[in-house]
Every structure is written in structure tokens, then in C-alpha cells.
């Protein structure tokens, strides 16, 4: 693979769109891997009992999944040196599974630091789930 080079990044370049699927099994795996065992991410009856429409994904699962898309663009996961977002709406995960649409656009490329900033958009069921989602990638 290898990291993306400065020559391979220009302002306005787009990433995706990519459709990511999310299943309840994936959320159970994320809960185990992250230590966040809040039942709203696993137990439909519990989620409904606290006023949610259904099981929802961990915000950090969504951010992590979007991070995977950025990693792919960067060509090396270690090159994603900054990554931040707001959690605007939850990703609802029915028993049949859910989907997240991810796309990105390169906003800045700094030739001196060889860094690119990428703004990501993530939606589920047409609703924006992340706000101000920006990653900075160290280019080769």
C-alpha cells in the first residue's frame, strides 16, 4: 500500500461515497473491543425504555468507521494525525442492520508541512450523524 504522497493530494479531491453497513453483531464486537458496554448499543428493549427509537451505534463506532475510510485514503493508518468530530445524531441500528454513507473532500494541502485536511460527511437514513468531522493526514 504505502502512504499517499503530496503529489497525490489536491484541494477539491473527493473520497467516496462509501456505504458502510452496521449490524448489531458489529456493535457487540465494538463494545467488547472498546469497553463501552452501555446497553443502549446492544439491547433493543433497554434502548426503547430510555426513549430511543431502537438500538443505536456508539458514536465512537461511527467515528471509528469513518476513520477507516480516511485511513484507506491516507494509505497508512498511522498518517491520520488529527481527527475530530461532533456527534450530531445517532445511527439507528434495527435488527436488519443499518447503513452509514461516508464521503470526504480535501479542504487544504500544506506543501511545507505536507499535511492535508479532509472534511468528512457521514449520514444515515439521510440524516447527518457527524458534524464538523475533520481529519488531518500526514502525506509522504
Amino acid at each position, binding site marked *: *500500500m*504505502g*502512504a499517499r504522497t503530496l503529489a497525490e493530494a489536491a484541494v477539491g479531491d473527493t473520497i467516496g461515497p462509501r456505504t*458502510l453497513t452496521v449490524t448489531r453483531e*458489529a456493535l457487540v*464486537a*465494538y463494545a*467488547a*473491543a*472498546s*469497553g*463501552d458496554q452501555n446497553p443502549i448499543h446492544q439491547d433493543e428493549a433497554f434502548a426503547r425504555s430510555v426513549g430511543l427509537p431502537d438500538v443505536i451505534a456508539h*458514536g*465512537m*463506532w461511527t*467515528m*471509528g*468507521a469513518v*476513520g*477507516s475510510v*480516511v*485511513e*484507506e485514503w491516507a494509505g*497508512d*493508518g*498511522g498518517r*491520520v*494525525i*488529527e*481527527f*475530530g*468530530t*461532533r*456527534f450530531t445524531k445517532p445511527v439507528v441500528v434495527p435488527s436488519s442492520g443499518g447503513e452509514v454513507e461516508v464521503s470526504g473532500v480535501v479542504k487544504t494541502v500544506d506543501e511545507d508541512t505536507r499535511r492535508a485536511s479532509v472534511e468528512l460527511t457521514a449520514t444515515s437514513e439521510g440524516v447527518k450523524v457527524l458534524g464538523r468531522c475533520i*481529519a488531518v493526514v500526514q502525506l509522504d
Partner: protein
Amino acid sequence: MAVNAEFAGRSYPPSGPYAVDAAMLAAFAAAVGSKDPVHTSPDAARAAGYRDVIAPPTFAVTLAQQCDRQLVEDPEAGIDFSRVVHGEQRFVHHRPITAGDAVLGTLTVDSVREAGGHAMVTTRTELATQDGEALCTSTSTIVIRGGE
């Protein structure tokens, strides 16, 4: 708001060390759908210039949230965890977290504020090796929903 505003500016003693191993990184990468081999193949990681397999970009949250417990479980902080929602998250990586690292996390409460009847608490966790090498600055805002 029930959250103690006097907690702004408070720092806690370092917590940990948290041992990071290859199995943890592989499980996290699989859970978020990351297929980059630098997380699972030591050969691929070394070819990319790393000592061993490295963490995905958001893995640091698992360590930062363990540090956050010092605040959430501090009875004087007044945080009702059942009303907590994750509002914002940001990572600044100084070098990738790598299998074999033993990580210490130092938690600081950057701000406590009120907005629309909810309390918003921003915490910053500086993750570093036991030798003091900076790994990641994780900044998190939690929203504690106000009572109905």
C-alpha cells in the same frame, strides 16, 4: 446544573499504566471495519516504519475513557452517568500507539459550562508512555442532560 462547575481546571494524577497488545488493536480494527494491515500484520507495520502493529486513529478513546472514570466516578463532580451523551471527540496523535506500549493517561477538566439546561464538560487526556513520550491528546466533550 448539578455538575460541579468548580471542577474546571482540575487535573488528576496519571492513571494506568494500560498495556496495549496486538490482540486489542486487531479486535478494535475489526470492530470499526479497518482493513489496513498496519493494525494486524507486524511485517506490514515494520514495512511502514513502525516498531510493531499500531492502533487505528480512534483507538485512544478506549484508554482515555478509562482515565475519564476518575472524574465520572468522583462523587464531588456530580455527574449522573445515566444522563451522559458523548458530544464531541478529537484526537491529536503525536506518534502512533503501538503494541507493547504501556500507557499513562493524565486527565484535566478543561471546561464546565451550561447550555440549554444541559451541562457540558470538556476533558483532555494526555496519553504518554511510562518514559514520558507523548502519544496522543484526546479531547472529549460529554453532555449531561438536564432533568425534565
